[in-house]
């Protein structure tokens, strides 16, 4: 049983942290604290999704916020115009964004390196421009009002829902990463063109990766729409991409959950130290800069280093 659980990628440490989170959601009554937990987890989920692409096939999706925003809009529209429940909306959001991600992946097939980031940036900007221009559907800058995920949903309810979503997505992503598919991702990330020599079809895996990560971004984006209650083109703003990207890199590129820890570390810190709120984005930026220069391995790298000192592996000196 233990082996089965760990094969899902759920290490003891991870389960402990998860348990702490669940306990917190059961016992914490303070509305403000609960909101903080939801937002931290949300950004952590998006950072994890971002890392699935950035940390593995080495493609920095610079239009990420727009993909999340697309999921938000899709879920919002489904919730507003159809009688189907919120889950249908989230599913539609994931599918639509996954499809756009697939399409973006195709657009980036002939490109390499920075050009991939540029293309995804431009696609993201196009989405944002479309959201503003297609007034009839999106109400442009005024935005859409989104009903709650279910009637009278409390913040605690949202937190439970997000935790479950996080767990499911994490397990799925982790399984993929640990499978031969994950190896293929890493091969492409190292060198797209020579990956073929290892027997990997780079096209297939690149598209797979883009589609999955976009779908997840859209899924969480849909959650965000219900949670916040309003969707405007601003959700697709570059700033959010930067924040998510910063969390992902500070957490450690390739670690998947590193970004979640970074989010829980930084977001409450910035929020609670009110005076720091103004400086929040500056500090994000500076942290990203410092991590890039001095410690590209991020929090995950730090964790590895520390845990090796505390728990030296048997057989290693």
């Amino acid at each position: 049983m233990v082996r089965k659980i760990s094969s899902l990628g759920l290490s003891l440490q991870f389960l402990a942290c998860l348990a702490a989170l669940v306990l917190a959601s059961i016992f914490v009554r303070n509305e403000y604290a609960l909101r903080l937990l939801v937002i931290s987890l949300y950004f952590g989920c998006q950072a994890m999704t971002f890392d699935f692409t950035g940390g593995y096939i080495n493609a920095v999706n610079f239009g990420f916020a727009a993909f999340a925003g697309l999921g938000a809009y899709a879920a919002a529209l489904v919730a507003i115009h159809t009688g189907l429940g919120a889950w249908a909306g989230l599913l539609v959001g994931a599918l639509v964004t996954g499809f756009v991600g697939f399409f973006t992946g195709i657009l980036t097939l002939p490109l390499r390196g920075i050009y991939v980031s540029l293309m995804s940036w431009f696609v993201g900007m196009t989405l944002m421009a479309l959201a503003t221009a297609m007034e009839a559907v999106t109400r442009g800058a005024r935005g859409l009002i989104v009903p709650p995920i279910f009637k009278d949903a409390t913040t605690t309810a949202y937190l439970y829902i997000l935790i479950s979503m996080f767990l499911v997505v994490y397990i799925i992503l982790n399984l993929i990463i640990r499978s031969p598919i994950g190896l293929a991702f890493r091969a492409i990330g190292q060198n797209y063109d020579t990956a073929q020599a290892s027997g990997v079809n780079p096209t297939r895996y690149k598209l797979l990766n883009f589609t999955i990560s976009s779908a997840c971004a859209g899924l969480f984006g849909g959650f965000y729409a219900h949670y916040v209650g309003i969707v405007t083109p601003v959700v697709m703003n570059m700033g959010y991409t930067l924040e998510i990207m910063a969390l992902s890199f500070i957490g450690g590129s390739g670690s998947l959950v590193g970004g979640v820890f970074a989010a829980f570390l930084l977001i409450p810190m910035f929020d609670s130290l009110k005076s720091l709120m103004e400086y929040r984005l500056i500090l994000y930026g500076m942290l990203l800069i410092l991590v890039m220069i001095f410690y590209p391995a991020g929090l995950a790298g730090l964790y590895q280093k520390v845990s090796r000192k505390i728990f030296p592996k048997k057989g290693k000196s």
Partner: protein
Amino acid sequence: MDPETAANLLLTGMLRGGLYVLMAVGLALVFGVMNICHFAHGEYYVLGAYAAYFAFVTYSLNPIVSIIVAALFSFMAGVLTDKLLFYPLRKRSKGDWIINAFLLTAGLSVVLQNVFRLAFGMRYRGITAYWDAAIKILGITVSADRVIAFFIALLAIAAMWIFLQKTNTGRAIRGVSQDEQGALLVGINLDSIHTLTFALGSMLAGLGGASLLSLSPAYPFGGNKPLIASWFVVTIAGLGNVQGAIIGGFIVGLFESFSYYFLGQGWQEVASLSLLILLLLFKPTGLFGTQIKSVWER
């Protein structure tokens, strides 16, 4: 379309183009010489705008002097940025340079924008005009500010061109962009050239922001549009290609002018972006080609 509207659009396009060229050349230099996909370029435009604003409004300096002060100020900011940020990154980051530098400038962009916000608030710092006059060109009335800004841009670009082609240092900059090891072997100090290049790029951006103060006021997030515009031009022209950036700037200026007329604000953006995406698909190295081979790898 009647000839007068066409002339008007042409003129607007060219005037816009001039400023785009200014921004794009700065970006192309930074990319070509330092291999940095500069994401904070717009913030130096804003810096120049703020500097010019305070020089002109607070210290009541002459418009030309204000603009020159702003340009020098942006130059110094560029020097500082390279020495404090890119120099340490160069020393430490060998493999993933392009992505790391890119991300660093993204972080820098966020930092600068919020520093502006904290220092100057969200107020728009603008002026009605440097020169309270209007000029008639081909029967169309244009504000003097706009025309003079255009000529400043042309002058700056011409000066930059001569600098790069005829002077020893300019040649060195070109050399570094073509073969770093070769540059080392002829005795060129790479760090100095990098600092100078970044400072020049920042100066050009600041010059743009300063000369267009009456048309685009200084405010913390004012760098986004110039950033996107200069990236447009550079992507269309070919990353790192300075000559291409000059022609590309005018092309983009004209394209935007005409598409704005036909499609209106919202859809014009979509049109530009679609064009950009198509171009990236079919000719990623840009219309005029990029000399940079390493940009193809990570």
